[in-house]
């Protein structure tokens, strides 16, 4: 009572009449207005700059650090990119490598990167709001800015905004882009790079036009139920179909299947005895089928390449008559397959069929059995094929590929959060949304069409990284700042040799003139490198050049004429313009040259650490065995190889020696003197 009375009289004193109120309120207003410059002076960034100066003070290079420190708001402005970056205002130590031991933000120095930190700005890579000078606005999602700092693990996605080609430094981005192509993502979703070209799939999904000739309805059903149960490495996703749908789909696919132009030749006799199985296995090995096809070994490990489908349970899938035709010439069934046309004779085919036909898994098919389909089932199957977009990947008779079947993902990396419906339990950030969507598409809605993929966590991370690179900024990037992808060339060799090379699918493994796979050496200048006799011999009977390699050149059983055609073409066409293969006459090498070369080989260059010249003494097996160099290579090639191997065969492991002319000459002399045909395999560990 007393206090309130006092208060009342106090207020009456202050505000009792207009003059006193005017005085009192004016003072109050001035006091309050004085807070405005004070608040301005106490902004976060000034506090950080003071802290930075305190941090620097105690260090041994304090003087130079303090001298380089620039007080006040710091701004990086890139009008051509529309980027305003004020991050260095608080991140004062970005360029101070001597503060490498500082672990607290905002004072950590930036690790070295191929770009100038201050010339490129921060938000180009890290996202966030560069214009902001408060912690919250700069780093997180706010009402005015949705794009928060990118989590460190997805940082490579930012490289992908300009760099469309593979970069050594961005493994995750490379893997993500490869996965997008390999897992058929881009067959449903359109993903365009900034130059307007849509990504294309590399997964080579098989045509289902003649599926009835290849396999049974039961297998189709079991496969649809769970593709990974058939082949753990299968890229086909699980569509999580109910059994009835699977029944109808398989009915439709068989019903739509047409016979293919099957061979009139009778199927080879398939031996069934154990010896045939064993011989089949060794033929499978000798033909280096496992360079492309994997088979699960007894320990459950996959052994072999992933270019072709896994063959662990092939016997449960392929009909024998189809397999016979396929082994004779795969092109008859599927003109587009990557599988080479092996020239196998009937007996060999029989052995392989015995081996492959034995690869069965009764558990996989179970005791599935279907009655002949009704037309209702087939119609339902057709509806399902359209609904699920099967034709986006597979060729199916009478079903056209749907356009815009799935949402375009060209700009998915800058999709506004407001437009996203998050599934329960998913953090409200773009990367988490994309990751959740890939991991379990149906958790967002059971009616979504997107199938369930079987991906390792790292693959999901890679995919998210690749998708996050699909931003508006990337699309609007000035052309001068864009590093376009190396587009696959559509090089074809000419004439008969060209047809032969297509038949043998050389480009599945070898790259020539920019087209082809990366499993085997680039052959663009192969004609300059090798001698014709060696080449002919190698084509007919490819022996081991690189002992450490697991994937090797298969033996196609070429005829003499075919080998000659190929060798002639390679020797005449695949010549480097850099030098003439006959420019060094090996007959002029003296014994002393070779002796000197030998010293260099074992001494200064220590070539034996990777190559073998003397099989009894040398052990290195990273590079090709050099025992037959004289028969294989010419002196000019060896000479230039020692100068700069990288320029002759991009991507080779050979170091760039830049040897002196004398050294290169001596080594060439020594190496072309090696003409022993190797018979003995080097001892393995």
């Amino acid at each position, binding site marked *: 009572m007393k206090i309130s009375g006092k208060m009342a009289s106090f207020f009456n004193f202050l505000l009792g*009449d207009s*003059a*006193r109120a*005017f*005085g*009192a*309120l*004016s*003072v109050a*207003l*001035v006091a309050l*207005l*004085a807070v*405005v*410059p004070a608040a*301005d002076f106490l902004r976060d960034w000034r506090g950080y700059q003071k802290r930075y100066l305190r941090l620097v003070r105690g260090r041994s290079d304090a003087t130079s650090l303090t001298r380089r420190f620039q007080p*006040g*708001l710091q*701004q990086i*402005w890139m*009008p051509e990119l529309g980027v305003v970056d*004020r991050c260095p205002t608080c991140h004062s130590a970005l360029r101070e490598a001597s503060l490498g031991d500082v672990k607290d933000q905002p004072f950590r120095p930036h690790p070295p990167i191929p770009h100038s930190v201050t010339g490129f700005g921060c938000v180009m890579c890290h996202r966030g709001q560069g214009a902001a000078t408060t912690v919250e606005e700069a780093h997180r999602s706010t009402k005015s800015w949705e794009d928060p700092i990118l989590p460190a693990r997805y940082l490579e996605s930012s490289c992908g905004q300009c760099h469309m080609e593979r970069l050594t430094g961005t493994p995750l981005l490379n893997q993500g882009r490869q996965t997008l192509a390999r897992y058929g993502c881009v067959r449903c979703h359109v993903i365009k790079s900034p130059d307007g070209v849509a990504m294309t799939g590399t997964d080579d999904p098989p045509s289902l036009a003649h599926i009835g000739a290849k396999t049974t309805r039961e297998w189709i059903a079991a496969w649809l139920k769970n593709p990974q149960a058939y082949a753990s490495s299968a890229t086909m996703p699980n569509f999580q179909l109910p059994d009835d749908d699977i029944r109808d789909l398989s009915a439709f696919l068989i019903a739509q299947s047409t016979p293919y132009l099957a061979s009139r030749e009778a199927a080879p006799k398939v031996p069934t005895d154990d010896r045939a199985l064993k011989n089949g296995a060794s033929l499978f090995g000798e033909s280096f089928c496992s360079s492309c096809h994997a088979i699960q070994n007894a320990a459950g490990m996959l052994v072999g390449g992933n270019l072709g489908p896994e063959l662990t349970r092939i016997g449960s899938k392929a009909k024998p008559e189809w397999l016979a035709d396929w082994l004779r010439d795969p092109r008859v069934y599927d003109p587009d397959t990557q599988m080479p046309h092996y020239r196998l004779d009937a007996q060999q085919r029989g052995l392989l069929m015995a081996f492959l036909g034995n690869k069965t898994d009764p558990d996989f098919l179970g005791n599935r059995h279907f009655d002949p389909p009704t037309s209702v089932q087939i119609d339902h199957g057709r509806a399902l094929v359209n609904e699920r977009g099967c034709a986006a990947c597979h060729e199916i008779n009478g079903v056209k590929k749907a356009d815009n079947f799935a949402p375009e993902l060209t700009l998915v990396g800058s999709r506004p959060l407001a437009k996203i419906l998050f599934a329960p339990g998913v953090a409200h950030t773009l990367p988490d949304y994309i990751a959740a969507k890939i991991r379990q598409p149906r958790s967002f809605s059971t009616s979504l069409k997107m199938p369930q993929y079987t991906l390792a966590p790292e693959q999901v991370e890679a995919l998210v990284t690749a998708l996050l690179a699909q931003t508006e900024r990337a699309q609007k990037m000035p052309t001068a700042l864009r590093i376009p992808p190396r587009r696959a060339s559509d090089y074809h060799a000419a004439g008969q040799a060209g047809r032969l090379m297509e038949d043998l699918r050389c480009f599945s493994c070898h790259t020539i003139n920019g087209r082809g796979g990366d499993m085997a050496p680039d052959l663009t200048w192969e004609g300059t490198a090798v001698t014709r006799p060696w080449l002919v011999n190698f084509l007919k009977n490819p022996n081991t050049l690189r002992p450490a390699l697991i994937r090797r050149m298969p033996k196609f059983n070429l005829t003499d004429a075919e080998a000659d055609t190929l060798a002639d073409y390679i020797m005449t066409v695949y010549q480097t313009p850099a030098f003439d293969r006959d420019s060094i006459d090996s007959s002029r090498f003296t014994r002393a040259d070779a002796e000197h070369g030998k010293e260099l080989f074992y001494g200064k260059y220590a070539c034996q650490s990777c190559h073998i010249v003397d099989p009894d003494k040398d052990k290195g097996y990273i590079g090709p065995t050099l025992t037959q160099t004289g028969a294989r290579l010419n002196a000019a090639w060896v000479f230039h190889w020692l100068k700069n191997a990288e320029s002759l065969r991009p991507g080779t492991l050979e170091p760039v020696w830049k040897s002196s002319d004398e050294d290169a000459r001596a080594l060439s002399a020594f190496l072309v003197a090696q003409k022993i045909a190797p018979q003995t395999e080097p001892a393995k560990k």
Partner: protein
Amino acid sequence: MSEPVRKESKNPDVSRRQAFVQLGVGSICAASAGAMVFGYEFLTPNVLYEPSPIVNAGKPDGYPPGTVTQDLPSGLYLVHGSEGLYALSAVCTHLGCLTAWKPELGIVACPCHGSKFRRDGSKIEGPAPRPLRWLKIWLSDEGDLLVDRSEELSRKQFVRT
């Protein structure tokens, strides 16, 4: 006139009110003065949207010996003289007009008031009080010529290639 007021001011209530009014008017004046000072702060831009003073002039190969190249957007002359490359500011030292290189005469002339300079920047004639400014020039790690337009050199400096 002030007589009655003085009398009244002996009334404590009145003098107090007077003090309050003076306080109020004083505060308003203080606020205005503060607003002036802070207005200066407000009017001073804290960040500038201006191109960087450091210009990348490209590779030295683009400037053959004996040539004068005017880089219009950056207001520079890149001169390859006998002693090497150097950079001159194209801004006239008189009143800041942009001068032009007259290849037929071999001089730099200012269109505004007729100042004329030699290719080393020294004054031939005209109202310009000083020769053209020599700017700091150096080669970057990538081999590009960089010119700092904000830094005038007191001594002549050349980049030799």
